[in-house]
């Protein structure tokens, strides 16, 4: 990895990086790392206490023993009896959506990267322009469209519209353009392979790293999505996890331990995935920001 900096120069290093400066820099970084991580630690600890034990001075800072009590209360009638259904809904929606995104975005990204067709420039510019249109503009009319399609209370509004999205296509195009030499396709064409088969059997395996990053990013976005599901899903059985959690707040506003346990179940899986694949994840995010 490139450590390209102002301070490569030997003299610069001596001048600016004395022990005092180094201590200061590490302290600075550590303080913010702690601030980033602390709420997660607090979350895990608090999920193991009854509310009465959370609401005291000093607040608990080490794990307690009420995890199962909180869990049982989370699933009680009057809390979220369909909690695991919501988890299932979230997993299913995010998975199906992610698979569709990977397919359609890599297909279109390949189209834009490796074909010189009339209208390509204009179409791609249009695609990039749509990234700048704020979603707020479409919220109400989208709802009406979904109602007209009888898609309210279904998963379609959360899965279908973003299947081929501008960010994903842009990200796949950038990758395919640089990672795939034209000779690869030409060789396949000489062998008589069909265009779709070239994409499926030759291109897809090569772009796996880019697909991985896009997959994590898409899954996370869908897993955490709140506003649109809140609008579309009205029945407890169809709730996604964030919608369920937001209603838990109004149902069990005073039960902090229970709410935080529910939140942990929304956060921990995605955090685990992130920690194990953080490099790919971050490379996915910087696409578009840096040319």
């Amino acid at each position: 990895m490139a450590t390209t900096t102002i301070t490569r120069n030997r003299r610069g290093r001596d001048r600016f990086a004395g022990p005092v400066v180094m201590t200061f820099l590490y302290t600075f970084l550590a303080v913010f790392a702690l601030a980033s991580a602390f709420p997660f630690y607090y979350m895990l600890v608090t999920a193991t206490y009854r509310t009465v034990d959370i609401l005291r001075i000093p607040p608990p800072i080490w794990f307690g023993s009420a995890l199962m009590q909180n869990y049982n209360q989370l699933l009680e009638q009057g809390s979220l009896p369909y909690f695991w259904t919501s988890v299932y809904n979230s997993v299913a929606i995010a998975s199906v959506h992610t698979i569709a995104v990977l397919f359609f975005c890599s297909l279109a990204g390949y189209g834009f990267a490796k074909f010189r067709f009339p209208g390509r420039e204009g179409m791609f510019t249009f695609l990039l322009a749509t990234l700048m249109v704020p979603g707020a503009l479409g919220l109400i009319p989208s709802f009406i469209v979904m109602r007209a399609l009888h898609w309210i209370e279904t998963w379609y509004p959360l899965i279908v519209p973003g299947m081929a999205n501008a960010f994903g296509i842009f990200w796949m195009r950038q990758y395919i353009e640089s990672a795939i030499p034209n000779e690869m396709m030409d060789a396949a064409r000489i062998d008589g392979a069909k265009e779709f088969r070239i994409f499926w059997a030759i291109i897809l395996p090569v772009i796996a790293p880019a697909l991985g990053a896009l997959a994590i990013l898409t899954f996370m976005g869908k897993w955490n999505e709140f506003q649109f599901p809140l609008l579309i899903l009205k029945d407890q059985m169809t709730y996604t996890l964030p919608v369920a959690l937001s209603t838990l707040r109004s149902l069990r506003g005073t039960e902090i331990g229970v709410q935080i346990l529910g939140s942990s179940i929304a956060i921990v899986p995605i955090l685990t995935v992130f920690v194990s694949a953080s490099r790919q994840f971050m490379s996915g995010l910087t696409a578009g920001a840096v040319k």
Partner: protein
Amino acid sequence: MATTTFTVAEQKAQDRRTRRKEAKRNVWAYVFVAPFFFLYSIFGLFPLVYGMWLSLHQWDGISPMKWVGFLNYIKLFTVDDIWWQAISNTVWLFVGATIPQLLLAMILAFIINSGYIRFKDFFRAAYFMPFVASAVAVGILFSSLFGLQYGMFNFFLSFFGVEKIDWLGSAFWLKPSIIMVTVWQWTGYSMIIFLAGLQSINPELYEAARVDGADTNDVFWKITMPLMRPVILFQVVTSIIGAMQNFDIPVMLAGGTQSSAPGGTDHAGLTAMMQLYWSAFKYNTGSKSGFGYASAMSFILFFIIVTFSYLYNRANGRNLTED
């Protein structure tokens, strides 16, 4: 090299074949990119146009639409105080969160990129963690941390002799609380983008500057900053677009998810997007609500986003020419 000779006719036939092959291949390219244009026209473009049409009507979503011309806009601009309070809240939250967030992200990115620091991957991952967490869950988590009597923050501050702060209950502290959570959640993301920008700068530029006798200060202002300008521009514009639609965190911290009025004490935490959402889908009665009225809100919001982005672009452009 062997020379092959073609007759003119053969050459032409060959060209035709290549062209036909090219055309056939291009047909596939259209098929490959078609899903996006198909989906976008139904779920992106059509709603946009339809929303414009809606904003000229009064409609509760059930009874027939009633044409009102620009009345919704006129009402919004003249008699709807809460809407403008929501806009002003949104702008304050944007300014209050974006400036510290980008500055802090920039400083962290510089330190991590400076070449002095080990454990880079650890720090990067640590700062980035908050970004992956669901905003709803984060809202619940911070509601507890912000607790008045027993919250962790007030407990911590009590060691410094600070009186208990009513973070979420008082109109004064609600915005700083929302800002803190926003900065907490987004700084890592901004830092990763800055870091990628810094790493994409060609090291030879720095070496050349050194050879020419530039000091660190010169290098920073004459090389790093100008080259980082597009990255900063990207960050500011995406922040404007995101912050003007601020919804999840304020909804969770300032209440009102089911039926109660959102925004907390004196609407201090009411954002434009919340007001839009509630006007369209919750308060479906009265003259200052409904699909048409809320659609007009969304276009005002859009106009504000475009204006801010344009102004920033222009200010940025002017600086460039001054240099």
